[in-house]
């Protein structure tokens, strides 16, 4: 078993990526994720890897696109405004069916916003972000350990399904330190028949491309991609269920909001309120089934978010609006306290949220 070390979330992402076999990182400085780039700048040259500070977020994601075409594991990271810039490239990567990891350590927005933690890029991450019909696999770590574990998972899933994956964290997750055990990953690159690594004059040329001028053909590629999305939805949903067995009320929260909510759920239990929590670990695919099942049992849901209410829409959809869904939120870099969440739980239980 590996030794536990104290690491910042951002550093855990970087080291886990290296463990997962990623040897290519392209980035551009932006708070609060710059530690990832700094870590890669130190480590990559020592392991024969590539760290390159690109001239812009746009260039960085397109360098990722280039490497992704070769089949090597590759990543970039940024924070909200920078991730907006990357959307063009992300759409191309999705359209060309390439695996890659994009990390978003979110900060408050819109616009230049602030530098404090936020979850207000939920829509952007889970509903596409760039142009066209596509999804990213989106994972939402709630601890430094998960920053590492979900980085590795993202690489695996991205490669398995040939889709880009996004690790959606926030400034708190990126900056906080917790003990983390970095797992040893037994990654062996697989032979791929779609990479652009040179024909060696042994095969017809491969083309990495997202352009289909024939609408019939473009429709077919979209249908084919959504077949894969269906498999992902069936096989790759991950969530944590906390004190849900006898719960009459259900908190839904991810990332830092779930950490705060956990305190509140425990406090509410101590007051005799039967409340539990469902914590989506994958935001896309969203844990629809557990929430649908909870909707038949609980009296109400409370979506706790660092946004004006984005995930709440998915909670309503998943629960088919069978039960009321309330919102407890702070935005702009503010984080709800456990006391604020507890108040919302009490109101929900009193039926007057």
């Amino acid at each position: 078993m590996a030794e536990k070390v104290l690491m910042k979330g951002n550093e855990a992402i970087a080291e886990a990526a290296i463990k997962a076999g990623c040897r290519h990182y392209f980035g551009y400085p932006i708070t609060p994720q710059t530690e990832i780039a700094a870590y890669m700048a130190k480590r990559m040259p020592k392991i024969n890897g590539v760290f390159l500070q690109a001239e812009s977020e746009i260039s960085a994601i397109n360098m990722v696109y280039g490497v992704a075409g070769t089949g090597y594991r590759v990543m970039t990271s940024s924070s909200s405004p920078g991730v907006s810039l990357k959307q063009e490239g992300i759409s191309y990567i999705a359209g060309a069916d390439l695996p890659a990891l994009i990390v978003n350590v979110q900060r408050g927005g819109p616009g230049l916003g602030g530098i404090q933690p936020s979850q207000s890029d939920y829509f952007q991450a889970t509903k596409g972000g760039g142009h066209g019909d596509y999804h990213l696999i989106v994972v939402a770590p709630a601890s430094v350990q998960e920053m590492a574990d979900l980085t590795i998972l993202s690489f695996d899933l991205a490669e398995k399904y040939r889709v880009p994956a996004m690790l959606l964290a926030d400034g708190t997750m990126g900056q906080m330190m917790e003990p983390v055990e970095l797992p040893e990953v037994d990654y062996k690159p697989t032979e791929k028949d779609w990479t652009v690594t040179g024909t060696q004059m042994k095969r017809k040329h491969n083309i990495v491309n997202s352009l289909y001028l024939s609408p019939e053909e473009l429709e077919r590629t979209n249908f084919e991609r959504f077949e894969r999305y269906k498999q992902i939805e069936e096989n790759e949903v991950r969530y944590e269920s906390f004190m849900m067995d006898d719960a009459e009320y259900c908190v839904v929260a991810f990332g830092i909001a779930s950490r705060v909510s956990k305190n509140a759920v425990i406090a509410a239990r101590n007051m005799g309120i039967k409340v539990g929590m469902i914590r989506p670990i994958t935001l896309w695919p969203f844990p629809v089934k557990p929430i649908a099942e909870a909707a038949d049992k609980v009296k109400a849901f409370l979506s706790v978010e660092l946004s004006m209410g984005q995930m709440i829409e998915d909670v309503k959809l998943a629960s088919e609006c069978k039960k009321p869904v309330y919102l407890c939120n702070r935005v702009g870099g503010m984080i709800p306290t456990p006391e604020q969440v507890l108040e919302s739980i009490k109101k929900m239980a009193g039926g007057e949220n």
Partner: protein
Amino acid sequence: MVVFEKPKSLTDAELHYCPGCTHGIIHRLVAQAIDDLGIEGKTVGVAPVGCAVMAYNYFACDMVEAAHGRAPAVATGLKRAMPENVIFTYQGDGDLASIGMAETVHAATRNENITVIFVNNAIYGMTGGQMAPTSLPGQVTQTSPYGRDVATQGYPVKVSEMLATLDGPEFIARVAVNNVKNVKEAQKAIKKAFENQINNKGFSLIEVVSSCPTNWGMTPVDALKWVEEKMIPYYPLGVYKDRSAKEAE
């Protein structure tokens, strides 16, 4: 007897370019260089957005289609991942000198070991003839219907001259394909740009002054005349930077 053959590193796909367009010649020159150097099996090309968007169907080597202007960044990724492969981009003036200027300048200043073929025909062809960053002063286009007014629309970008001021790049040259003599010079320059990469010398960019009879509203013959009389005086041909040659002096 002279036998005229299609270079092997071009596919059999029929080119979609307009009659009289010089993209066909330039494709051929690139393919010929790849053939001559025997590198088709390890070459990966990056196609732009613009008229050459479907270059990936024409070159027989592996190909990537990049977003508008991003080819040098995509090529950087490819080259960094596969230093032993040969990576080239094929880009037009809107792609390389307008929306992708940052990618171009930074790949050059990093002396990224790639080969860039830059086709300058002073117009956006694919979208139907709008003003390009290289459109000449006074040039009439869809978006400069009264002629490019430098007071409001600025001056053309002289890419080769500009990039030659950087310490980074290895080789910058401007050629043309409007007559046999110039085509031969272009052939030499393009081959050198690939050789430089094979010899790990770094960033080589060949600017090819080209024509666009369709969007210039001219016959192919008049378009070539316009290249000679208008384009080349504004964009003089020649080698703008050749670090190795200079160091050898």
